[in-house]
């Protein structure tokens, strides 16, 4: 017999809320692990100025007489090609990636959700028009459109954020539209309309709340993806610029010294990997918890 993957109680049973949550967590070691790791990363990001032994190295400070020193007691991750402490820079880098992810996803939702609601609720030609535009944006694999945009604009973290947000919104439009359309078709919504309840109220009190859960799941899964995309664009030189301690930029700068100074590339890369891993793990766990039927797959 196949074991059911979740130990959540069957529909209809009533348990104290904490108990449901506790059981959910116990069945989801990945969620717990992801949650802890993500929390740790955020704490590190917040406390970077306190934790970093050489905070100025995350800015314009350089130490030309200490270039390319291997990891030592003084510099845990070694120094880079202009003598900066890599450990400090990696710590400060933790502030950049999650922040970019948050801003990108907020922007993407701000654009995508209203469009999705409009398309799903109103249907008709508005739906068609919005869906066709969405299709066109989705015809570009994610990194590509962001790259093309980032290339034509002057390179900076702001450009990067805008470029990725422009690439990301169509997914949410499609997601919300599906949800909104299915909810809008239900009989009780018809009754609401017949009763003369204003559209805005219907949308905010009925459509949106029902669409939120899959949106949260998708957003949490996307954090890792945004972090990877942002670091890839910075690696290509289209995002963060010197001296920003962006992890992707650090890997890019270190390429030339890699053979003799493996630490310049290794630690920032591990940081990207661990961060993307943590948030994706968290997203996966959240999906298991909130949406065991796994309707929303990407």
């Amino acid at each position, binding site marked *: 017999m196949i074991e059911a993957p979740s130990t959540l109680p069957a529909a209809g049973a009533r348990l104290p809320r904490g108990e449901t949550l506790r059981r959910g967590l116990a069945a989801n070691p990945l969620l717990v692990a992801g949650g802890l790791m993500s929390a740790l990363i955020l704490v590190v990001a917040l406390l970077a100025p306190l934790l970093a032994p050489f905070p100025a190295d995350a800015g314009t400070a350089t130490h*030309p007489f200490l270039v390319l020193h291997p990891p030592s007691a003084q510099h845990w991750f070694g120094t880079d*090609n202009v003598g900066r402490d890599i450990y400090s820079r990696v710590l400060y880098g933790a502030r950049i990636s999650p922040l970019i992810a948050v801003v990108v996803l907020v922007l993407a939702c701000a654009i995508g959700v209203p469009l999705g609601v409009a398309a799903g609720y109103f249907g008709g030609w508005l739906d068609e028009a919005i869906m066709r535009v969405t299709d066109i944006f989705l015809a570009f694999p994610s990194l590509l459109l962001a790259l093309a945009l980032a290339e034509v604009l002057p390179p900076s973290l702001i450009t990067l954020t805008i470029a990725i947000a422009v690439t990301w919104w169509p997914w949410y439009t499609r997601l919300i539209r599906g949800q909104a359309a299915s909810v809008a078709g239900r009989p009780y919504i018809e009754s609401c309309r017949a009763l003369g309840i204003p559209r805005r109220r219907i949308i905010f009190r009925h459509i949106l709340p029902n669409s939120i859960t899959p949106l949260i799941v998708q957003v949490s899964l996307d954090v890792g993806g945004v972090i990877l995309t942002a670091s890839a664009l910075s690696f290509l030189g289209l995002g963060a610029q010197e*001296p920003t301690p962006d992890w992707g930029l650090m890997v890019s700068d270190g390429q030339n010294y890699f053979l003799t100074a493996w630490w310049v590339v290794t630690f920032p890369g591990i940081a990207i990997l661990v961060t993307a891993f943590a948030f994706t793990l968290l997203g996966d766990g959240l999906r298991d918890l909130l949406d065991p039927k796994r309707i929303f797959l990407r």
Partner: protein
Amino acid sequence: MKPHRAGLLLASGTALALLLAACGGSSGSSPTASSQPAASNQVFTYVTSSEVMVDGWDPATEDSDGIIAMSNIYETLTHYNSTTHTVSPLLATSWSKSADGLTWTFHLRQGVHFHTGRLMTAQAAKAAILRTKQLGQAAAYVWDAVKTISTPNQSTLVFHLSYPSPIDLEASADYSAYIYDTQAAGPTASNSALVKWFNAPHDAGTGPYQVQTWNKGQEFEVILKAYPGYWGGWSGPHYKKVVFRVVTQDSTAAQLLRSGQATFVEQVSPSVWKSFQGESGLRTVTSPSWQNLLAQLNAKTLSLPVRQAISYGINYPGIIAALQGAAVPSSGLVPPGLFGHFSNLPNYNYNPAKAAQLLKQAGYGPGGKKLNLTLTYAQGDSNEQVVATLLKSSLAKLNINLTTQSLAWPTQWAKAKSANAANRQSIFLEYWWPDYADPYSWFNNLLETQKPPYFNLSYYSNPALDKQIGQVESLVATNRAASSQLYRKMQMEVIQQAPIAPLYNVNYQYGMRDSFTGFQVNPAYPEVVFVHNLTPTG
């Protein structure tokens, strides 16, 4: 069994690779250093980091890295020997000048043929020089003193000058001095037809190699093959093919060298170069050069106190330390080894206090207005990137916000020459080296008033200096000591006016395989390897 995904991936990947390496091993695809198949003795692979090595194949107008290839295809009348510091014969076997220095007579080597098949005669050489002079690009100025050229017979070339000038030295220049067949595209072909012929690609040189393939913008950018009819002959072991391969990553270049897929690596970061030392199969060579790295400060947008402040605000010892042996301190504009170099000039040192004081005069500096500047440098050069970052850092302490931009060389140059002055940079970082064994190149190219700008990318204009530049070359031919003093005076003026901040002199650090002998660094021909002079030992 624990199906760990990553482990499975690596294991299967390795197994597959080992299997295939075994299959393809005998044909030289095995990367281990010891197994060098005999065929590759014949191929010299030169790895360069410059993105576009060759922009065009016209020997009269080549002005950049293309000489790395062209110096194996084309030859000059004379050749500068950096060990003896003298000019030695190449296409010319002997020469003499008149007492007043206005007439130079060159006797040409007999029996030399162009790759097009025609014999190299005095008339052909004259046509080449006149065409180069007339096109007026790159270093065509080396022929400026030439009024007319006469050819009393097939192997004698006589230069009649309008003022004395060291023609023997100028004829050895690494730019604009090649002797080529101007009738390569036909006796009545127009200039554009000839240029098109060159870019096909074809070549019309006299040298040991010919162009076989040109893949512009691609990795195996240029391939040369031996020219069997070379006057220098092919007795003994020689490389029969030369491949120029563009690899921008140091780490990739190093791995290619170690695996034997590359024979010579032009530039890698100092730490990677150090790692070559002592490795079996490899050889490292270090040598002083006539190249320096210059920061050209925009004289139109940066006032004198600001330029001087920037010159004091550069951490020269820090830059040299960070470059781990690739750089040595400079004194003035002229590198050591050339006449006109003086080690006792009042050079700028790293003095942030003085810099701050000067900036204060202009209202900038710590506590004053923030100054926003832009700096451009060539992509693919890790040393320039380090310098740019260090500059940004030391200038930040002076409340100067320096934005650094790395661009491919043609783009960096085009931007500096923009018709729209607002588009131009504040600081232009570039290497400079002389066109021939003389300091003149730094002055007439970088400092003489130019409208529109060509290489004077500080946009500097100083009529008094212009006058001195006009005088100095005649002095070189007639009164060497006086010319030296004039060069000293000019460098003092340049230091005072600070349109250019010399950052350091380049120390060549070359990595190569030890499968050949005969390699000599010649600063007069930077980065050039004269492959015909090498003897592969296998």
